[in-house]
């Protein structure tokens, strides 16, 4: 067990289903000693893929149960649904708060549907870069932040979001899509190195850099800690 809700069981991740008997994106449901779990598909979720691939303690990638977290680029809610299982539990019994921001109304359609049965999930239709438009919903800084916005300038968005919303010593995960950045002609390796350098200059300690190739091609998941 990685936490009270996340289970790592022979090559697969499972989370306790916060809304029993429903599958969010077609994942399989399974009972472990009478409790229903949902399978966390690493092919559909970059956070799931990162958890499968990491060489460090897996729980380093997960937020503290019952805390408030910020998720930028929420997408259709695949990762969000599992994070919710971990962070909030059934009917938000742990008292967590998951603030999920996405720009696309199509994605929000799925997220608001999720939020209907999941108190503590706060979907926001907004631009991840326009902090002042939705920043009032986060009165205090968070200890865990995830960003997955496939657009150019991902790193700058990440840095400015962390400066504003992340506590010192907080963990921030950046899923970087190589194809969204300007092609410098030096290959992906060079691109990822330059990003790592940019992050260290901006006051982040890189805990791990996880290649997601195989689950999600041309993606790297940076696990960083804000140190200044």
């Amino acid at each position: 067990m990685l936490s009270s809700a996340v289970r790592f069981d022979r090559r697969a991740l499972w989370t306790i289903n916060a809304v029993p008997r429903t599958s969010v994106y077609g994942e399989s449901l399974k009972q472990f000693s009478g409790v229903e779990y949902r399978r966390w598909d690493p092919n559909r979720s970059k956070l799931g893929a990162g958890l499968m691939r990491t060489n460090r303690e897996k729980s380093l990638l997960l937020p503290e149960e019952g805390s408030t977290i910020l998720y930028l680029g929420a997408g259709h809610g695949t990762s969000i649904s599992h994070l919710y299982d971990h962070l909030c539990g059934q009917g938000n019994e742990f008292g967590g708060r998951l603030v999920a921001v996405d720009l696309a109304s199509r994605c929000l359609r799925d997220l608001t549907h999720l939020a209907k049965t999941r108190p503590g999930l706060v979907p926001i239709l907004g631009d991840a870069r326009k902090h002042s438009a939705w920043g009032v919903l986060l009165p205090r800084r968070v200890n865990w932040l995830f960003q997955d916005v496939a657009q150019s300038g991902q790193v700058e968005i990440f840095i400015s979001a962390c400066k504003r919303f992340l506590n010192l010593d907080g963990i921030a995960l950046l899923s970087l899509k190589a194809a969204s950045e300007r092609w410098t002609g030096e290959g992906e390796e060079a691109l990822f190195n330059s990003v790592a350098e940019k992050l260290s200059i901006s006051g982040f300690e890189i805990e791990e850099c996880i290649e997601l190739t195989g689950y999600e091609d041309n993606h790297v998941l940076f696990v960083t800690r804000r140190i200044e």
Partner: protein
Amino acid sequence: MWIWYDWQAAAVVDTDGAILDDDKWDGFYDHRAVIERLECIAQGGLTLEARTLLERFPDAKPLVHGEPELPEAEYPFPSEEAQLAVDSAALALANKGVAQAAGDPDKRLEHLLRASDEMRSTYLTMESRLVEWVGLFLPEARFGRDRTSLGKTVGQAESLEELSDKLEVSKPPVGPSKTEWNVLREWGESTAVFRGKLDRLENAIRELAENHLPSLSLMLGPILAARLCVEAHGRMRLARLPAGTVQVLGAEKAFFNHLKTGAPPPKHGHIFMHPWISRSPKWIRGKISRTIAAKASIAAKIDAFEGEPWTQINLDLMEQKVESIRNAHPSPQSRRAR
């Protein structure tokens, strides 16, 4: 001195982080009022409390919660109860935003246009299958021009003999079995039904495009106007594109091939569909498409910013311009003069 504010409170803070004055709002039981406040902040507006404090401290600079300039201080953050209220307001706001997407003509136009493209390709495949199929049994039948009514004719015929009478060809030596004929007849029926559906789809596109893009529709025809709008990912984005991009919109493959290999650039993308270009001789199509693209770009700007739509007068002027290009270049430029 600054005025810190969020959706439920405001406070005056000095450079040392001391709170000089504050004002709290306790109306968060009113769901709609909370939504209104969140919307106001999202648009960069000031809340009532912030304005009240601004009157008391006119020198203070109002900044929304989280602005980096603000000093660290004990701000009056929302209580747990207030936080729950604002969370449900945020959900309602998200729902509202999602619902508004249905009113977005750009998104509706995209579905309509893509649906009509898919319908057209299905219809054409079915129609050509029908022609081949009937031609197998009635080798003498010729449907050069009038293929469109074939589906209906086949669908209404009771038997292959009746069909051969209708098409005025000799009776077939071997015919299909009863069940086989029924399948063929139903295929004809569906072809005719698809034809009707396609027409209705295009009418829907015309109706929406003429409303959403009046000037561009007048100039290029509603279907082409809709296609440009969809290819540009929306009316506002189309309006912001330079005319040169509008000209080659839809010819991306040729355009990037040009950038990559230095092959000649494409002269036209989707706008080639316009008769002014497609019915003009080859050597002036580039010139005309430049003119039309420039005008289309203006039309798109008028539509996007909802200005006075163009009328027939503007169109006539444009036609004169195109005509003058045609007259100026009656024959292709000789290779030697180049």
